[in-house]
């Protein structure tokens, strides 16, 4: 079979809804695209641990301290699952991790921002995890089967995180004025990054991942689902939105592409977000200080007891 024939058959397979396994033949573009996509997802899970890690020391009750730790633990666990799936596409975890440390690969925009207090835990846990769940649930039908298998577990755990985040939010919303203020303040800071999270309108002609059915829905479609689901819930709790303020149109809550200031996202895409350098530097420093741990784990025992 010629390459063109293989490619055509691969396209037909995807068209018919068939899934791709690691050992199947796939075009290099597909392999590279899927690898990059899953690598970024894995990077995001482990970088996503850092903002919440910064909030963990000041959890306000013992139970919250344990449940937040457990939530971050799940996220680190997700990165573990995802790096494994990505590795099978031809890049070692060590290589992916090194690229992350040196700013040669990407992670989600929301993890480039600073956190200030417990209100951030509520917004991250409820709205950012809510946004993540909308995008991840859409990937459950991705054409790359090994990815969908780990996503099943990831989405189940994200569902729990969402409950956890909503629970924290509801306590703040029912609490003192100071507590309500904590949520509102965090919402004011996070709303624009959450809109960025879904990315700008998808160019269907150019989006290879959409064509290969690695992704199944467009950015604007996902953002719309998020807005319709969460805007009413936030309003109901008596909180208000900063710019870009969602407006009601034909039974939908709308934030148009042109309502969004994209400049901050462009900086983050160049790994120049407000916290990018500091968080990567922290990770890099610890990684470099612990070369000896990796050696101890990978080399055979030299000092038998």
């Amino acid at each position, binding site marked *: 079979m010629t390459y063109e024939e293989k490619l055509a058959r691969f396209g037909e397979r995807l068209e018919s809804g068939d899934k791709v396994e690691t050992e199947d033949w796939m075009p290099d573009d597909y392999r590279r695209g899927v690898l990059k996509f899953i690598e970024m997802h894995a990077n995001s899970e*482990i970088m996503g*641990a*850092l903002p*919440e*890690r910064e909030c*963990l*020391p*000041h*959890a*306000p*009750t*013992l*139970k*919250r*301290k*344990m449940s937040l*730790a*457990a939530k*971050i*633990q799940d*996220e*680190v*666990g997700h*990165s*573990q699952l995802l*790096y494994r799936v990505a590795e099978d596409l031809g890049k070692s*975890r060590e290589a992916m991790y090194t690229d992350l440390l040196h700013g040669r690969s990407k992670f989600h925009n929301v993890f480039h921002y600073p956190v200030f*207090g*417990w209100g951030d835990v509520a917004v991250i846990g409820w709205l950012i995890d809510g946004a993540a769940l909308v995008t991840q649930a859409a990937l459950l039908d991705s054409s790359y089967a090994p990815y969908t298998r780990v996503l099943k577990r990831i989405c189940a755990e994200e569902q729990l995180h969402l409950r956890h985040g909503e629970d*924290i939010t509801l*306590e*703040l919303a*029912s*609490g*003192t004025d*100071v*507590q309500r203020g*904590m949520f509102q303040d965090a919402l004011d800071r996070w709303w624009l990054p959450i809109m960025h999270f879904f990315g700008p309108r998808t160019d269907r002609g150019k989006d290879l991942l959409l064509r290969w059915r690695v992704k199944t829905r467009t950015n604007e479609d996902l953002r719309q689902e998020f807005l319709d689901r969460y805007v009413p819930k936030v309003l109901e709790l008596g909180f208000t939105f900063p710019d870009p303020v969602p407006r009601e149109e034909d039974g939908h809550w709308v934030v148009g592409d042109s309502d969004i200031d994209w400049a901050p996202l462009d900086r983050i895409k160049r790994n120049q977000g407000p916290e990018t350098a500091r968080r990567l530097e*922290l*990770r890099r420093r*610890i*990684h470099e*200080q*612990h070369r*000896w*741990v*990796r*050696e*101890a*784990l990978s*080399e055979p*025992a*030299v*000092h*038998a*007891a």
Partner: protein
Amino acid sequence: MSEALAAVAVALADDELVIGHRHSEWTGLAPHIEEDVAFSSIAQDEIGHAAALYTLAGAIVGRNPDALALGRDPSEYRNAVLCERPNGDWAYTLARHWLYDTAEDVRLEALARSADDALRALATKMRREERYHLLHAGTWLERVAQGPVEGRTRIAEALARAYRDALALFEPLEREEEAVRAGWLPDASTELRSRFAQRATGQLDRLGLPTDIGAVADEAAEFVASSSGDLLAAGPAPPEPAVASGGGGRRGRHSADFEALWEEMTRTYRVSPGATW
């Protein structure tokens, strides 16, 4: 009288809370991703044990567990100084983890014979979880001790640094005599201390790690911190070990690192004490 029991439970809860807090600082940054997940569980377990012990104490003194955990002044905490030391690197964290859990096993072994029903039941339950902690710490220690020279050197140094602090886990607890007399504490701290030292050095010897750390510890106890923080030779033997050499925690004397930890740990709680979170 049972306030002595509460005092014992609070001191042990403080240990668990503070070391759990330190352990949890590795979340997302541990030197191996699978280990990050495993170590987080250990941190969660320790905080869970703290919650159970505060609940036990709270029932006696009429305070809720969160108020005990987060609503006291720094000088009211009775954790051993070992627990509050900064994590340093993975070698120090591992050394402390191993020493702490070995010490805890010695203590829980005794508490599982307590005359107090609630404490006895809790200690028995905690021991089950601590078995994983001990296996985890022991397996890591063995791997590093038998591995390449850099890790071996680092872990030996870290153990030497943490050991005297670990002995101070067995400084007498407040109102200990009362608790021993009532049988709540079946064995006095001094007795547990020598049991711990024997067990720890025995296992280090088996791993081929230096066991003369006990001597280092005794020597270190002869020094006290000057106001500038330097270690100065003391004149006559100090009446009690100073914070710099790991002592004092059981009497509410803590290091500057604890102040910072406390500030951070109680920050949100202090925003509106009594609020629901």
